[in-house]
């Protein structure tokens, strides 16, 4: 039985420490959670993501107070009630809409940072896998949220995406109907996506964020050179006051102080978009109410799904689906496909550097082609080539990393 000091004032530091190990917690999670000094602002993206998730959560709660998950009421509850009757309802909606879109930009930056610096490798595989879990959960969250305004794009994108579950020639129509709860998207469909969006997926995301943070604690974050740091020695130096010589800084307050600055810059951009430039995140087509009898001229997903959508499109139905399924999971396999022992930034890894930039550019081209009308033969061709290239990139990765020269430590 632990010792509890009778004289400790309730909720005083000592009182709390005896009960929940406050000081240990603070040490492990903040003041002695060591972060390498040799990092750049890209390492702030994780906290930017956490902050954006917080913003989405808060704005979402406000929207939830007036939203009506009913196929007859949903559109007007947002576009009329929230947008014109509720005080500052428009602000919450714009924040939520822009946040949902911009969070993916930051996720992609965060992912490509990880790829560039090899932060998914030896010791950090679970960080990467939990990160990919977050990517999938965010994708599901974004898709289900997009259904809620019940506009033309909600309806038709919902139709197209759920159709994929028929599995091409498998013609699993029963599965599609089970997912939709109806033959076509309707009331049952809307209410279940509402549940997913406001309850189940957010719970999963919160759990995954905790897991993601947990997987970070022991391997520590990577650094600009992929250097393996002796944390005990570096921490000792730091605690002795040799902050200049030490290779590490404490998470709080030193690392956080920089994160906060990066967040400030990010919020300036974020709110500029919220007030003045939101069409990219709130597609005008979705301000037309859902109409099952009127197919829009162009149906496309939000920008962050375009690259994988374009891997589906150029092929015949079945091959497209297989390629699409492959694209959805392949990033999970990255830590195991990269056979090189080097944890180093791409510019020190020879062919891998070329591989990295080709992958990035290819995914941007796929993103663009995913939105451009495939009826244009040039676009269709470029889309096909970049989709095939994307698929080839993974066997190529295995080969080039297998033959990658080992970088000698200290070099």
């Amino acid at each position, binding site marked *: 039985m632990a010792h509890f000091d009778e004289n400790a004032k309730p909720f005083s530091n000592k009182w709390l420490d005896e009960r929940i190990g406050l000081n240990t917690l603070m040490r492990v999670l903040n003041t002695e959670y060591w972060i390498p000094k040799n990092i*750049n602002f890209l390492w702030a993206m994780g906290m930017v993501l956490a902050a954006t998730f917080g913003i989405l959560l808060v704005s979402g709660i406000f929207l939830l107070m007036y939203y009506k998950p009913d196929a007859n009421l949903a559109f007007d509850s947002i576009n009329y009630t929230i947008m014109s009757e509720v005080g500052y309802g428009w*602000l919450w909606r714009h924040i939520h809409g822009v946040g949902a879109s911009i969070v993916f930009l930051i996720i992609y930056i965060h992912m490509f940072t990880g790829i560039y610096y090899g932060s998914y490798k030896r010791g950090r595989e679970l960080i990467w896998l939990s990160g990919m879990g977050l990517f999938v959960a965010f994708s599901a969250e974004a898709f289900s949220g997009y259904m809620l305004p019940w506009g033309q794009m909600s309806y038709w994108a919902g139709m197209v995406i759920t159709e994929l579950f028929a599995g091409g020639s498998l013609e699993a129509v029963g599965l599609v109907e089970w997912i939709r709860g109806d033959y076509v998207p309707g009331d049952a469909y809307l209410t279940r996506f509402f549940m997913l969006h406001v309850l189940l997926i957010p719970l999963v995301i919160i759990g995954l964020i905790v897991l993601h943070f947990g997987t970070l604690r022991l391997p520590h974050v990577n650094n600009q050179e992929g250097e393996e740091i002796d944390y005990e020695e570096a921490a000792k130096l730091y605690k002795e006051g040799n902050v200049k010589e030490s290779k590490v800084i404490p998470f709080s307050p030193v690392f956080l102080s920089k994160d906060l600055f990066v967040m400030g810059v990010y919020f300036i951009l974020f709110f500029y978009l919220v007030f003045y430039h939101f069409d990219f995140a709130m597609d005008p087509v979705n*301000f037309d109410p859902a109409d099952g009898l009127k197919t829009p001229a162009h149906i496309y997903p939000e920008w962050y799904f375009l690259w994988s959508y374009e891997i589906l499109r150029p092929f015949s139905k079945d091959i497209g689906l297989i390629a699409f399924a492959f694209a959805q999971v392949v990033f999970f396999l990255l830590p195991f496909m990269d056979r090189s022992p080097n944890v180093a930034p791409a510019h020190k890894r020879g062919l891998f550097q070329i591989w990295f930039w080709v992958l990035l550019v290819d995914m*941007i081209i796929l993103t663009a082609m995913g939105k*451009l*009308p495939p009826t244009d033969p040039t676009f269709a061709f470029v889309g096909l080539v970049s989709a095939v290239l994307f698929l080839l990139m993974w066997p190529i990765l295995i080969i080039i990393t297998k033959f990658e020269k080992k970088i000698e430590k200290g070099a």
Partner: protein
Amino acid sequence: MRELKILAVVVFFSLLTYYLVEPYAHHEMHKKVDADGNEIKIESRGFVYDGAADVEEAERAGDKELVAKKKAFWSDVKKISKLKGNATAGEAGFGMCMGCHNGANMNMGGVIPPSLDHAGAIYEKDYLIALIKDPAMASNVDHKYADTMTHPMGSIKTMFTDDQSIADVVAYLMTKKAGEVTPKEAFSEACMRCHAMRYAKTTQLGDTPKFKHEKDALAHKIKVIEEQDMVKAYMGKLPPDLSMIIRARGAHFMETFIENPQTQLPGTSMPRVGLSHEGYEKVKEYLTEIGDPSKKHREEVGPWVILFFIIFTILAYLWKKEKWRGHH
């Protein structure tokens, strides 16, 4: 500095992606091409109506006869436009308009003839001349009629057969029916006979009154449905509710579409409305008021929020500097 270089790379790829999926993709998606695959540039003509757009359209369709007909029609309009109209003489002619535009809310051939109380303020002069000469030609829906006489306002052709009388009645409209017009009046006169606006509680029959008894409300609803059925029969489909249209369509689309619906939706049954530039601005103001009421607040609140985060960033920077002192 390394961080700035990295930032430049991140910004470059983000902007490139943005450019490709937004401006570029939207341009490619909405581009109109003629039979030879050449792009047709759709540009606003500043809400003047001289038939040039209609002639080009007929030329593109390769219909020589139609080209000649359109040219002849619009050159007649131009001739009349040059005549000096006499507003006093026009007042008598206007009496004939009132035969139909009488405010009785009676459907006539598909729609309720709109009020003309501000016709001079919202419509363009040459368009009004064209409209009285031949409504179907003026509103560019002549393709719908074998004989434009059968247009709901088509019989006007037989009432104003000489050019001077047209010039006179238009002069009357431009002087006596050109008073100050509110955005809502502009919308009611120009669009409401076809388009409802549920967020403004307006239907084709006008503002929906408040009813004490449900029975009366239902009776009104039936009248609205009957009216909408007639509009539907006339237009081939029920024109969409315009409550949110200002958010659903871009500024460029709205402008060019209202000026000449055929440019953006070839073959559409929506007639050209013939608004002047000022008239369009009024209608747009109303559509914004109903469909995007937060625009004003956004513009008011935006700068303050951004200022807040600029100050936040500066303070965060100072804090960071202090915390990192001695670390390098």
